[in-house]
């Protein structure tokens, strides 16, 4: 064999090795419990208010992973249960890394959920959690982007009104794009497992 042929074989072997090596590392997303978007859509024109009364825009989501829950604090069951689950998920993922994903509660009920009340509420579950809300239009625009659905009653004269909502958990990737959606009932084990798979998949791109 002449020299150029040997070099060619070496190059092919190297390329194949890298290719199959990568393929081996790419995780199998068919094991996901949640739904992962093949082409995550970037969040756009986010104009929410965080629990410190500061503007929260799409830049909030850049360079980190964020779990979002869309709900309301008057909710006695799904919302506290899911935030409890997200706190457990946070604990599981803190074992993996010093930088676990962030968690954000977006309230669709700005009439009752002031930033001050949201702050008290999220801190009850975890000191690292953030709350946000906004104007009804801006909340709707945001919820649409993360495939969350909800319905406030038209008549809200009774202060005890209830809000129907999809109770989904959404995962935003470090590009500030919608990576995945988890429908209820979510568990800390499956959220943590899915999160690890999705991060590995994201890094293997």
């Amino acid at each position, binding site marked *: 064999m002449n020299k150029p042929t040997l070099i060619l074989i070496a190059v092919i072997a190297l390329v194949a090795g890298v290719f199959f090596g990568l393929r081996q590392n790419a995780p199998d997303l068919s094991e996901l419990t949640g739904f992962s978007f093949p082409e995550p859509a970037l969040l756009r024109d986010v104009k929410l208010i965080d629990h410190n009364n500061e503007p929260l825009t799409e830049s909030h989501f850049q360079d980190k992973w964020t779990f979002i829950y869309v709900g309301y604090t008057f*909710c006695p*069951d799904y919302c506290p249960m899911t935030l409890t689950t997200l706190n457990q998920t946070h604990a599981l993922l803190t074992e993996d890394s010093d930088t676990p994903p962030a968690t954000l509660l977006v309230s669709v009920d700005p009439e009752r959920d002031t930033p001050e009340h949201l702050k008290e509420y999220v801190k009850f579950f975890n000191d690292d959690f953030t709350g946000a809300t906004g104007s009804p239009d801006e909340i709707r625009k945001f919820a649409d982007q993360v495939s969350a*659905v909800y319905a406030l009653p038209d008549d809200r004269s009774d202060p*005890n009104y209830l809000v129907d909502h999809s109770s989904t958990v959404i995962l935003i990737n470090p590009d500030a794009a919608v990576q995945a959606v988890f429908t209820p009932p979510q*568990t*800390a084990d499956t959220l943590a497992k899915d999160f690890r798979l999705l991060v590995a998949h994201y890094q293997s791109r």
Partner: protein
Amino acid sequence: MKLFFALTLLLFGSLTSASEGIMISEESAWARATPPGSKTTAIYLTVMNHSGADISLTAATANISERVELHTHINNDGMMKMQQVVSIVVPAGGQAQLKPHGDHIMVFNLQDQLKQGELVSVELTFDNGQTQNLQVPVRKEPPSANNTMDHDGTEHSGMKH
């Protein structure tokens, strides 16, 4: 035989204050601890029916609020909707599980924050005339040791991934 009968009665008496067939599983009962300023919570428990006929839970009261209702959740096209119900059936020889994302005792107008370790006095009324009084512990998380609260997908079969 008489002794056996007496012992059985004694044993049952220690597990429950039930007569006529309804028994509450004490370790299943909990009330959700609340964040500061929250006005609502839910109470969960498992009711067992050892009789040969269906019995319905028709009312609940609790010493933490004047407004306590029986509720269920329905999945309305992917939206979770909470609804008041008149009663919750405990089937003959079976049980009714009041648990997160399902049937629950709903508490409105909470005056004080409910803190882990406190006790709530609950009275349950059944349509066979029975009433049950119990002390329900306040917890931040469900009593089960694992953090997965619901593995049966049956009541969520409408949800597609």
